[in-house]
């Protein structure tokens, strides 16, 4: 039966191959949507861990999260150093790392921060950042590069770079008068850290032409003899001594009186982000499901069309002893073979695409698509396609059954 179905399909190579291609492409699409979602989610969730709160100027939580951790988009406002110090100095705060964004090196984001970043930033399963070459910056006019940034810029420890104001590509206002020395390169993390260039807050102030610590403030400094490294910052990462206090502190910061601020818990905000993206994902899913369905309808069409010309074939099979049910299962077998084959071809196509685009996507988005075995969700989708193919095949199979009953051996051609 299997062999018969296979040979019969091979006999109709052209139309069968076209159908297989159509279904394979649609299956690849269906799987790609799932895979992209899965891996983006994985990558995003892996990007920040161990940070209890992120604070910044008043904005949407999503915007603050995307800007501070993923270096996507920008913050229109800034948060004053005073507010930062105030919050960082609270009892429940274990550590605080200020971040100032908005500049770039040949299109790569510059993250101005402190030594605290390399100490406290965690990604994936609470992994720390590793400086594999050189060391973390200790002084002004020094920079540390993410793994991918070092590769893109072609710089290593000992080289120099210049920072451009703004996040554009090759900026017009490069500050050539401030050459900055590369003193360290970080190990690859698979997070946006890889794309970033890290400098001290003071460095960025100098680049902007402001003398660090020169700004006058109404409030008195809390730490005497300690100058402000910056007048204002974009955001700050906080670690708390007692994690459950995050919710309360978040509420307090969101209602901070001296300045409109936003605080977010990374995990919660990511979840909200998924909810927003969910609609988008569902739409893509729906569309790829429709494409798969169209592919299967194509298969249905060639099977139905073939029935008329195969009436003789059916009569021959009946003459050698096949019952109508045998013909029914012959057609089902053909359809299931086509869908099975097409589904695996689709899977192969997906891996090929992923493999060839992996580096490109990583360098563009920082998202690393790992070549894993299909996940249960993906198997499930493939299973659904095959089941759909099977169900649709019942139509031509039923037709063949009826036809062979009424034709018997006396086919009129």
């Amino acid at each position, binding site marked *: 039966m299997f062999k*018969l179905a296979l*040979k*019969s399909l*091979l*006999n109709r190579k052209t139309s069968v191959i076209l159908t297989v291609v159509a279904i394979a492409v649609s299956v690849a699409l269906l799987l790609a949507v799932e895979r992209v979602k899965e891996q983006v989610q994985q990558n995003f969730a892996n990007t920040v861990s161990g940070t209890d709160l992120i604070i910044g100027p008043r904005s949407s939580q999503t915007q603050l999260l995307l800007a501070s951790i993923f270096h996507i988009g920008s913050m229109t406002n800034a948060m004053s150093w005073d507010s930062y110090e105030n919050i960082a100095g609270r009892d429940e705060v274990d550590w605080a790392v200020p971040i100032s964004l908005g500049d770039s090196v040949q299109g790569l984001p510059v993250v101005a921060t402190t030594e605290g970043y390399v100490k406290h930033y965690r990604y994936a399963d609470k992994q720390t950042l590793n400086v594999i070459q050189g060391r973390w910056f200790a002084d002004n006019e020094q920079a540390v590069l993410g793994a991918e940034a070092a590769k893109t810029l072609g710089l290593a420890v000992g080289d120099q770079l210049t920072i451009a104001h703004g996040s554009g590509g090759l900026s017009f206002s490069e500050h050539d008068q401030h050459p900055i020395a590369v003193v360290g390169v970080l190990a690859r993390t698979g997070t946006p850290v890889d794309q970033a260039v890290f400098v001290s807050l003071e460095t960025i102030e100098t680049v902007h032409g402001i003398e660090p610590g020169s700004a006058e403030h109404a409030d008195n400094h809390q730490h005497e003899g300690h100058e402000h490294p910056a007048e204002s910052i974009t955001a700050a990462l906080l670690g708390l001594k007692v994690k459950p206090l995050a919710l309360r502190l978040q509420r307090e910061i969101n209602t901070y009186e001296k300045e409109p601020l936003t605080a977010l818990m990374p995990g919660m905000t990511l979840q909200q982000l998924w909810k927003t993206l969910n609609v988008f994902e569902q739409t893509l899913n729906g569309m790829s499901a429709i494409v798969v369905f169209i592919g299967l309808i194509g298969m249905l069409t060639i099977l139905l069309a073939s029935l008329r010309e195969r009436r*003789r*074939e059916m*009569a*021959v*099979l*009946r*003459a*050698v*002893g*096949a*019952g*109508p*049910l*045998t013909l029914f299962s012959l057609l089902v077998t053909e359809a299931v073979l086509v869908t099975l084959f097409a589904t695996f071809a689709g899977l192969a196509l997906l891996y090929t695409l992923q493999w060839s685009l992996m580096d490109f996507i990583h360098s563009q988005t920082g998202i690393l698509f790992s070549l894993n075995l299909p996940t249960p969700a993906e198997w499930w989708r493939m299973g659904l396609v095959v089941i759909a193919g099977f169900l649709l095949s019942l139509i031509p199979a039923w037709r063949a059954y009826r036809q062979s009953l009424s034709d*018997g*051996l*006396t*086919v*009129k*051609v």
Partner: protein
Amino acid sequence: MSAAIELDKVRFSWSSQVPIIDIDHWRVDCGDTLLLRGASGSGKSTLLSLLAGINKPQRGEICLLGSDITRLSARQRDKFRADHIGYIFQQFNLLPYLSAHENVLLGVHFSALRRQRLTQSATQTATDYLSRLGLSKQQQQQPAAVLSVGQQQRVAAARALIGAPEILIADEPTSALDTEHRDVFIKLLLELSQANNTTVVFVTHDATLAGHFNTHTELSQLNPLPQTASAGGSNV
């Protein structure tokens, strides 16, 4: 001599109204070779589909090899056909996407019984049959569609006879052949059947073939119906 085929008061009509088959009694002995002649549209193919168990008469008994197939379910009749009957059509006997050799193997594909009867492997038997019918080894491996009509009919004969079924039914198998090929074909067919002791029911509208067969029966005598449908009858 026992009966290979015995019909008793068989009546069959396609769509209710006029019966196309109404046979009071008909018997074919085992090992007989019979030519059944009838005009186009007289119901020859219809009668054969009853014998093959594809269709069931509305009335009467059809005993093949001692069992009444009208009492069998459709499924059992399919099984019976696979086991005991070889069938040859007028033309288009083969699956075009299989080789001649594979088409012959189809003859035992649906019957374990016929496979058991083989004295050597099915592959070897098919090769032997086709060689005896004059197909070269190379032609045997070609797709059936590229063979000439005469060769296709011989492949059909090999398929119908492989595994030694007790009954061979041939529905105008030579009407697409020219005279010369026709006589050679019938000779080969009868030779192979006799070797297997197969009963042959050979249907045709051509009375000149009668010389090849032991028995000659006219359908009009067997089935004395007012042939209302014959005028527009087709010749399938």
